[in-house]
């Protein structure tokens, strides 16, 4: 377990954003829970019927690793001054490739889910923090089942608004899967308990994910040297928490396709109990 020094305090363990230097066997977790049959969580669940929204730089249409994109939207300046934004349909695709990469990982993990895109990045950066919130709010109120957010903001003034939005999503049964920042800095909304936060681990096993016994990052998933979809129908390999996050988002889609009545906290609990390093114990009862 990397207990990397906090950017602000320098104290080990104060802020963990990535698992490095230890194997899954070195981060055991014992949980109290009812045992579930192997594969109960998502075996047979392909994501069918689950709507996943990628809030990012857009998603390239017709990419072979992404497949169909149900709808694409973009956050634009409403032109009324005061930082008001609107969300409109778009065919502008992906500005950077990052959103396409995330969508490809979701598709690979949950092949039958619906993928939607809200583009919040890629334009001139002025106001991008507010655009992120506008896009996320729109996605939450569209009642998507899962939102992949491989983004965060370091701007403290957005924290309260993001926290309210994350809580709203939680009670609407929209699972926000949020990426921890790639640097050891404070950013949001991955720090909130109402979202599922994801960092990367070093292991090569493609489908390995772990629960972090020292949150706020709750799960570690493959984020190193990941083959990802990129612009122009191509692929590249990339490294970062951004690419661990859509793997967990895809798992959430699989869980919800098999157990559509699950709440957000049930989805998180299912991920927790199914993590490779979590062993279900007997609890305190004798």
């Amino acid at each position, binding site marked *: 377990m990397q207990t990397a020094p906090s950017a602000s305090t320098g104290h080990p363990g104060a802020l963990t954003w990535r698992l490095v230097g230890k194997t899954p066997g070195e981060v055991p977790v014992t949980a109290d829970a009812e045992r579930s049959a192997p594969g109960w969580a998502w075996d047979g669940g392909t994501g069918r019927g689950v709507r996943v929204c990628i809030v990012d730089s857009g998603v390239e249409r017709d990419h072979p690793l992404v497949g169909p994109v149900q709808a694409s939207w973009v956050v634009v300046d409403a032109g009324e001054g005061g930082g008001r934004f609107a969300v409109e349909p778009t065919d502008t695709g992906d500005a*950077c490739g990052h959103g396409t990469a995330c969508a490809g990982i979701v598709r690979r993990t949950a092949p039958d889910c619906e993928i939607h895109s809200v583009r919040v990045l890629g*334009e001139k950066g*002025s106001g*991008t*923090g507010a655009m992120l919130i506008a896009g996320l709010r729109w996605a939450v109120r569209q009642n998507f089942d899962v939102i992949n957010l491989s983004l965060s903001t370091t701007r*403290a003034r957005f924290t309260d608004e993001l926290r309210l939005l994350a809580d709203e999503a939680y009670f609407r049964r929209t699972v926000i899967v949020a990426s921890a920042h790639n640097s050891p800095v404070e950013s949001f909304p991955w720090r909130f308990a109402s979202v599922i936060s994801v960092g990367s681990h070093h292991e090569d096993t493609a489908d390995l994910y772990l629960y972090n016994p020292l949150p706020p990052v709750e799960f570690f998933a493959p984020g190193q040297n990941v083959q990802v979809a990129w*612009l122009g129908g191509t692929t590249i390999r990339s*490294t*970062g928490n951004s690419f661990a996050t859509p793997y967990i988002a895809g798992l959430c889609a699989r869980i919800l396709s098999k157990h559509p009545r699950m709440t957000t906290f049930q989805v998180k609990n299912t991920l927790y109990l199914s993590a490779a390093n979590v062993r279900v114990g007997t609890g305190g009862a004798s």
Partner: protein
Amino acid sequence: MIGNSVRPASARNGGDPLSAQLLQSVVDVARAIFGAQASSVFVLDERNWELVFRAVSGNGEDSLVGRRFPASSGIAGWVVTSGEPMIVDDLARSAAFDRDIAESTQYVPDSLMAAPLVHGEHVLGVLEVLDPAPQSRTDLDELDLLALFARQAATALRIVMDRDGAPGAADPAETEAGVGGGAGVRLGRIEREAARHLVENLQRLLGESGS
């Protein structure tokens, strides 16, 4: 998307010798740390939303400073708007890489590491490392090292922006950057002292005599 504004060689790094030396030392050290073919520092021109080559080590060292390209696309564009570092590989096989930019610089890398140069909540520019040594590629530890070094590079860039003025930087009070963003920055006395130490450390790393 090729560079559209090339400064004369005499105006490299804004024409100030100390600024040029400082940023050159940053990219030289970055290149050495990662065993890379090249390294560059870009400054973000907020008004035009462009990235401007401010210092280059390795390929393009003699020709790229002053060139501009849009900050709204590509990997560097992502780094600017997201404010996060990124490592990508297999670029040479990717038709979608900003090949027009890369070819205009007469060098198409196979792999690239890029990190934002951040002051507070503002992205001032981007540090890029092209074709790092194999052991430096696609490794989470290297991402941490890159981010760590980028903090020093950002300090250096702040010094240069303070001395020379940031090209096109908007008034911080007028910017509403959230995920990324940028701003002109002024240094206080303590920051200047920290900057002086940074220069000395960089020069020591490079094996140069202090000046």
